């Protein structure tokens, strides 16, 4: 027992051992640890000083309601002026939504977060009942909605294309059928496929809360929406619609039996990838209305939403295609040998494996698009980031951009970090089979 280690009683497990092994292994790593530790400590203390110790939370207001920011100007550089957030947080989060009605966007944000949280539970995605009558209810509901929209479309075509203006005497009836149809569809989906049903129902409630017009809620035009709900709506609807489209485009691009479809998919992907998102949005916002006949205005947010969907789908399609190409050919051949149809083969053999492979780049694209939605600024839609800038345009607060941007960054980090945490969990769970 002459070992030096034993003599000095150096532990080999526990926190001290971990520190020894990882941070103070040699004199070089000790020096680096000390230097970095010093820097982290200094920066950390400086940040705490700035953000909490010396921070100012309230400023006095003049009789005319203008903030007197002299206190903040004096502590600039040494203490944060969180008074700007206290004054402006509702403007930043909810935009120009009528002040007394801002509980509606607040509930919308909560609903979105709840929807995301619920969707992370895998049990929710299991299939529900397969009862025939439920399927019929859902189908009938979808049929009624299509009927109403088809009549509307016909009337628009008649008025724009042929100059025949018809006031639809059946409008109230069709409107009612449409509502019944929606209820039937949601009910059917809830039983058939709970997760999809919950999504459709929640998004419908979100839309209802934002635009109002029923249940005694006042109507709020899209021009008055802004802030976080806009960011969440654009990102959620965008990715929810872009992903299925992307899978179809990726499959189409790899098709060997349908050259026309393949060419179409290639052209679509290459065309969209070849131009910046800004120009697609610009096209949707500035050029598109000029092509439309006068009097027909497709909602600005809807145009931007479609642009985002088309753009995201092109990128996601290439990610999905990467997964498809990574699968060994044997999988397809084995499925063929079993006599599976194309959709059985794709749905049960190819896609589950291919998508699992590309979770990291998929989430990468998702997070990228969540942040890219702020580009809608250039077409006059004010999302979270832009509302922050608007809040900063107010003369008394113009010089406190750091505080506002820190606040915005915090919100973005919450959502983006949530996404990456979930994807890591999903990866671990799905790939557990491979670790064996």
């Amino acid at each position: 027992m002459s070992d030096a280690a034993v003599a000095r009683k150096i532990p080999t497990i526990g926190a001290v051992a971990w520190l020894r092994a990882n941070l103070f292994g040699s004199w070089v790593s000790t020096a680096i640890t000390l230097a970095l530790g010093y820097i982290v400590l200094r920066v950390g203390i400086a940040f705490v000083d700035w953000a909490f110790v010396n921070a100012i939370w309230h400023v006095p207001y003049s009789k005319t309601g203008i903030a007197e920011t002299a206190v903040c100007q004096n502590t600039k550089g040494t203490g944060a002026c969180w008074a700007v957030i206290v004054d402006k947080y509702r403007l930043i989060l909810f935009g120009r939504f009528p002040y007394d009605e801002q509980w509606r966007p607040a509930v919308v944000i909560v609903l979105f977060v709840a929807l995301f949280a619920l969707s992370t539970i895998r049990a929710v995605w299991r299939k529900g009942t397969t009862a025939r009558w439920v399927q019929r209810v859902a189908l009938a509901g979808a049929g009624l909605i299509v009927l109403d929209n088809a009549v509307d479309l016909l009337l628009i075509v008649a008025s724009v294309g042929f100059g025949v203006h018809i006031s639809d005497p059946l409008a109230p009836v069709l409107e009612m059928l449409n509502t019944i149809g929606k209820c039937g569809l949601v009910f059917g989906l809830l039983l058939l496929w709970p997760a999809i049903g919950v999504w459709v129902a929640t998004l419908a409630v979100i839309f209802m809360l934002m635009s109002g017009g029923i249940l005694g809620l006042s109507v709020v035009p899209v021009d008055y929406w802004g802030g976080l709900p806009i960011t969440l709506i654009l990102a959620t609807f965008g990715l929810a619609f872009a992903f299925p489209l992307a899978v179809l485009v990726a499959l189409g691009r790899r098709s060997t039996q349908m050259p026309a479809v393949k060419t179409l998919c290639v052209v679509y992907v290459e065309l969209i990838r070849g131009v910046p998102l800004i120009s697609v949005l610009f096209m949707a916002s500035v050029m598109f209305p000029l092509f439309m006949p006068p009097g027909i205005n497709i909602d600005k947010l809807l145009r931007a939403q479609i642009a985002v969907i088309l753009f995201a789908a092109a990128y996601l399609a290439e990610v999905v295609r990467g997964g498809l190409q990574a699968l060994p050919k044997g999988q397809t051949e084995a499925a063929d040998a079993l006599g599976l149809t194309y959709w059985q083969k794709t749905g049960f053999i190819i896609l589950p494996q291919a998508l699992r492979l590309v979770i990291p780049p998929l989430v990468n694209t998702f997070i990228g698009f969540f942040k890219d939605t702020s580009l809608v600024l250039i077409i006059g839609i004010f999302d979270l980031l832009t509302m922050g800038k608007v809040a900063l345009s107010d003369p008394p607060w113009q010089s406190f951009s750091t505080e506002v941007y820190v606040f915005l960054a915090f919100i973005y980090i919450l959502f983006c970090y949530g996404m990456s945490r979930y994807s890591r969990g999903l990866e671990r769970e799905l790939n557990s089979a491979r670790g064996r």
Partner: protein
Amino acid sequence: MTRFARWGIGAPILAGLFAGVLAIGSARADGSGSATMDATRAKGQLACGVSGQVPGFSLPDSQGVMRGLDADTCRAVTAAVLGDAAKVKFVPTTAQNRFTALQSGEIDVLSRSTTWTLGREGNLGLNFAWVNYYDGTGFLVKKAAGVKSAKELDNATICVQPGTSTELAIADYFRVSKMKFTPILIQELSEIQGAFLSGRCDAYSTDASALATFRFSQGPKADDLVLLPDIISKEPLGVMVRKGDDKWFDMVRWTFAAMIVAEEKGITQANVDTFLTSTDPETRRLLGVEGEMGKALGLDPKFAYNVIKAVGNLGEMWDRNITPMGVPRGINNLWTKGGLQYAPPMR
């Protein structure tokens, strides 16, 4: 039997369609003569394009309510057409999509600090109805420098945003005045302001209204900065409407005229009701007590009363929105006080 049954359903539908066509036709017959005005009244809402990002002109306050001169212009026009300023819908537009929004009918009035130029009025299919702010390129300097006039800026370094009309205006001005200057070109607004405050340039040049706002935003340090009295270019910021709807154009123009006449007569938001019993013939015509002024424009006889009740006269709009920014009224005053705002007679 089958044929009969089919007609049994078809006949009422056809009849209904026919009735609908008739109803629309007759609605058109008793319109105001302005398609935009009819559509606005049918919707009960006037879509007005603003910037939504410029303090003093249009910027939402902490409660999300649009404030500023451009915003109040929208309210005035809405009060004239619909009788209620609350029926305005503010549509934020960007410098790029503002004209398209007006051309395509997404908005009916554009009130977004847009400079009235020949090119714009000639090429865009749009008209300028009135100027709500006479702006121009100005200079901001530090008080410590002791400069009193732009003529003393020879050999100065000047911070300016590249590619703007300001850059061209100061180049012309210095050439004409036979002076030299060194431009420092910075794109980002906060950086250019920081550069000026840190002393990288002697003067900061852009539209005088923006300079005044920037000076005001400095709070207690505003007194260290001086806005030079010289304005070296013309930037009349106007309100635009589509060409081809003259009645709509008239409505915007005479809304402004009414606000100017009101200021001339001392009629304000607070005291307008006391003027209803006035004996002055022009006041009586203005407020719709006698004559058919409003009707000639396709408006309510009391349209001017509604406008004044909603936003006040032109001077009140200025005092509410621009005075807090520390901008003197100058050429934006009434013609009787040395300014450019002059209204044709209301008769």
